[in-house]
């Protein structure tokens, strides 16, 4: 395994583009090293992207938030303003693994690993997050939901890597939340994950995005479900419709972590619970 420590994204791209075999980028390493130790996958070329300028920064400007690709979960949780504006995104990241894993794991790594159960992804989708992708032909902006295309697969082509993560600017009366279901209290992979991002006006929901994880090959954006709560004050009727739509949207599998029946049912339960938290947060923002 070759190990590289490029100083810029351009250099990283060039190394990735000029090599053959299995190429992996190393940020937090919490997926790459597990695969290495478990003999699931040994890269031929490993490109450590933590030494590129700016990758550890969290910044804010007129376009919103910009999160460096090597920012760890712990660093996100410790950023008070980010945690205040995007509690759902931050808590989703915070749920990944242990305190130790939080010291290393990154949100972009979580996205690019391509796991259907990734905790970080539904919250990013519901947040309308985008990423900058750098490749041999320059950079492009991509919506987060367009990155994963199937279990372990992304839409990134040879030589490309994500070079920054962007979250929209927040206005008042907006809030998000993320809940996942796991059998224990910690340390498990989500059996179902649900993110809800809301905007309210006079207690009325005027914008909503709902996303589910671990119930399909990639995280889902539930447009129909979101419509069921837009225009409501999240009354029981709206919640029940949201729940039904969430369950209906599921295309899960039976596996060691859960059954189709279980995942479908719990997706509905989580959708309700998550929406309530997001709604309460949005109201508290006033």
């Amino acid at each position, binding site marked *: *395994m*070759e*190990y590289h420590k490029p100083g810029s994204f351009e250099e990283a791209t060039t190394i990735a583009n000029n090599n053959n075999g299995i190429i992996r980028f*190393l940020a937090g*390493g*919490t997926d790459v*090293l*597990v695969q*290495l*130790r*478990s003999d699931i996958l*040994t890269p031929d070329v*490993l490109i*450590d992207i*933590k030494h590129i300028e700016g990758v550890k920064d969290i910044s804010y400007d007129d376009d919103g938030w910009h999160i460096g690709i090597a920012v*760890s979960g*712990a660093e996100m949780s410790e950023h008070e303003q980010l945690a205040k504006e995007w509690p759902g995104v931050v808590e989703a990241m915070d749920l990944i*693994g*242990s*305190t*130790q*894993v939080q*010291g*290393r794991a990154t949100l972009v790594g979580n996205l690019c690993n391509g796991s259907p159960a990734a905790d970080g992804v539904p919250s990013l989708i519901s947040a309308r997050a985008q990423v900058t992708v750098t490749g041999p032909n320059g950079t492009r902006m991509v919506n987060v939901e367009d990155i994963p295309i199937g279990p372990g697969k992304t839409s990134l082509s040879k030589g490309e890597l994500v070079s920054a993560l962007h979250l929209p600017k927040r206005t008042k009366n907006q809030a998000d939340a993320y809940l996942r279901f796991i059998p224990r*209290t*910690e*340390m498990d992979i989500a059996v179902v994950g649900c993110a809800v991002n809301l905007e309210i006006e006079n207690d009325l929901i005027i914008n909503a995005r709902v996303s589910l994880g671990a119930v399909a090959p990639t995280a889902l954006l539930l447009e129909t479900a979101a419509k069921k709560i837009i225009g409501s004050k999240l009354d029981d009727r709206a919640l029940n419709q949201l729940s039904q739509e969430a369950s209906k949207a599921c295309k899960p599998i039976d596996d060691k972590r859960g059954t189709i029946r279980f995942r479908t049912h719990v997706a509905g339960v989580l959708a309700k619970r998550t929406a309530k938290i997001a709604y309460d947060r949005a109201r508290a923002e006033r």
Partner: protein
Amino acid sequence: MNKIHVNTEVNGDDVEFLCDTRETLLDALRDRLNLTGAKEGCGTGDCGACSITLDDRLVCSCLVLGVEAEGKSIGTVEGIANGEDLHPLQQKFIEYAALQCGICTPGILVATEALLKKNPDPTETEVRYWLAGNLCRCTGYDKIIRAVMDTARDLREAS
């Protein structure tokens, strides 16, 4: 085999080692530097027995490559005591019988020391969640949690 030369700092001392790119920092600490306090319980970041601090950040050393240690500052269980004076956490763990077999103890001590630095007054729930990545199969955690809570209290009272 492509070995890389790594310069790093462990428990305040400058050290160097050669390691294969695939070797984890845990392997390097144990096999190259003879620091066997950190243990491999799983190799996949699920048990916390290999906990160390990397630039003061709590991590699993099995999820860090040896080559990534270049220029970093590492803290291990061997660096917790000050000479013959044990850290109050170490004292309390012995006093409270907060260990049985002791294999998870180094990782738990490194993790709890990091917790108390960050949060000197944690609730029981905070301690339990902070330590959720440190598996202990012997104790049921009861005496560990009590030892941590009471050490935190003693340290607060002393300061």
